[in-house]
């Protein structure tokens, strides 16, 4: 049976050895996981969101558990693009998996600057543009909620990079397919969804929001039905590959995303509970395909639409 199943996925010029990536912010700069699993087993990983300058992030408490989920308000703490390139990337020299840089800013200029800085870094295979951040030039409303913003941001970044550009969408919108379409019109090579759903927990002892930032992003298995639904919706509207993310905790949920239309998937919060989960999910996908006598993982992408 070995090698009988083809798990490879193409995204533009890139070939991923399997559809499983890790989600930004849940896998550090990847090197941290070397102790716990074989990084080479992965299709790739998306590193923690990078900004032009190092960012300190929000005050604690930053996380709180919820039923089958958690809220986080890390505030995008990161070492900044320069230290990332100088200190973090070299640790991954020997790793045979794609590295995707997740970038964000508060103005379009910052995104462009990040794209420029990464343009000649061969080790970085693609950019994932996190549009779930406040657009300071528009009074702080999220870039990702407005199709025009997403369109223009995507086109700006595209102009400054030759790498595939993935636009990561927020679920906190009326119509995610409209935003995805705007990203594609702007030239996105793929879209990834979903980022976290905004939530709040109140500490009834102190009678205040639990998180210092008040609200946080809901992730974990609780949200997977929302992610699957959005991937399904977007798949009907766009032509470029979709990367599915949100609450993937086991290979059944991973397969649901693929069947809904995701060509690749990202595993986030599940890495916290089980640092080896990605490897187990790859195995589970392979076994499913073998059991069903399906030759290539591509054959099930979007298959739920045939119903």
């Amino acid at each position, binding site marked *: 049976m070995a090698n009988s199943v083809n798990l490879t996925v193409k995204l533009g010029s890139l070939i991923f050895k399997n559809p499983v990536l890790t989600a930004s912010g849940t896998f550090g700069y990847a090197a941290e996981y070397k102790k716990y699993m074989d990084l080479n087993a992965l299709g790739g990983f998306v590193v923690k969101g990078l900004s032009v300058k190092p960012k300190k992030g929000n*005050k604690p*408490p*930053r*996380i709180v558990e919820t039923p089958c989920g958690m809220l986080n308000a890390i505030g995008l*703490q990161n070492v900044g693009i320069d230290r990332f390139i100088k200190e973090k990337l070299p640790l991954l020299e020997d790793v045979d998996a794609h590295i995707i840089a997740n970038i964000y800013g508060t103005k379009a200029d910052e995104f462009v600057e990040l794209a420029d800085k990464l343009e000649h870094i061969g080790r970085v295979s693609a950019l994932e543009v996190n549009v779930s951040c406040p657009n300071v030039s528009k009074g702080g409303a999220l870039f990702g909620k407005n199709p025009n913003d997403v369109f223009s941001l995507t086109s700006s970044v595209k102009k400054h990079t030759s790498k595939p550009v993935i636009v990561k969408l927020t679920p906190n919108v009326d119509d995610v397919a409209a935003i995805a379409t705007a990203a594609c019109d702007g030239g996105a090579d793929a879209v990834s969804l979903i980022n976290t759903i905004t939530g709040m927990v109140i500490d009834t002892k102190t009678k205040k929001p639990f998180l210092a930032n008040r609200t946080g992003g809901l992730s974990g298995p609780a949200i997977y039905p929302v992610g699957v639904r959005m991937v399904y919706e977007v798949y009907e509207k766009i032509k470029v590959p979709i990367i599915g993310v949100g609450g993937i905790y086991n290979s059944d949920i991973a397969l649901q995303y693929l069947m809904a239309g995701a060509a690749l998937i990202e595993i986030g919060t599940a890495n916290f509970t089980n640092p080896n989960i990605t490897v187990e999910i790859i195995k589970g996908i392979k076994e499913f395909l073998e059991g069903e006598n399906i030759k290539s993982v591509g054959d099930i992408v979007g298959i739920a639409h045939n119903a």
Partner: protein
Amino acid sequence: MKLEIFENKRVAKDTFSLKIDNPALFDASPGQFFMVKINDFDYPLLRRPFSIADFNDRHIEIIYKVVGEGTKILASKQKGEFLDLLGPLGNGFGDIEKNRRIFLVGGGIGAAPLIYLSNVLENMYGVNYKAYFGFNTKDEVYVDFGKTATMDGSLGYAGNVVDMVEPELDENSLVLACGPTLMLKRLAYVCYQKKCDMKVSLESRMACGIGVCLGCVVETIDKDFKRVCVEGPVFDYREIEWQTL
């Protein structure tokens, strides 16, 4: 790493001692902790951090207090069931300078890691130390060495453990402490005044325990954030921005 439960028994009010078979695959230092998966399904979602209360060839011991849903479920686990542990994690108390007057100061369930620390100090380092433990009431006491303070006076010194240990401290003292944040804050203030050293084990909400989520940070005096799970849980008390706690 799935390990078998050898014993899980009540040792004081709401307090349990959990002994797990030690596979003898790794070492562990006092002050380090494990991230424990409560059930073998996805609820509760996150692992729970627990310090090592003892560690020997046969068993890993954790002493825990039932405070919420996870620890309540943990208390229902029986001998022979398996628990998934990730660890040992964190830095631990590190090397201890022998030529100091060493004080272990624990409050409530925070005394747990000091038990293992005391064993290591005695057996490996062969150093002397004094231990002071504070509890609310006699029912809560689960340590059988050192001096005890209880808030209600039902056992030992009547009052706060910080007040009990304060007169003993001087410039040559090294305090090794763990306990509720409020107690540690007071203790930090005392150590500051007495110009003595202190290493303190902090608690924080954790998602990953391995340094990747950035959820567990504490603010340090240089206005930076440090991860309790990797740079801690044990910190030099001078590093910490105590007002933020």
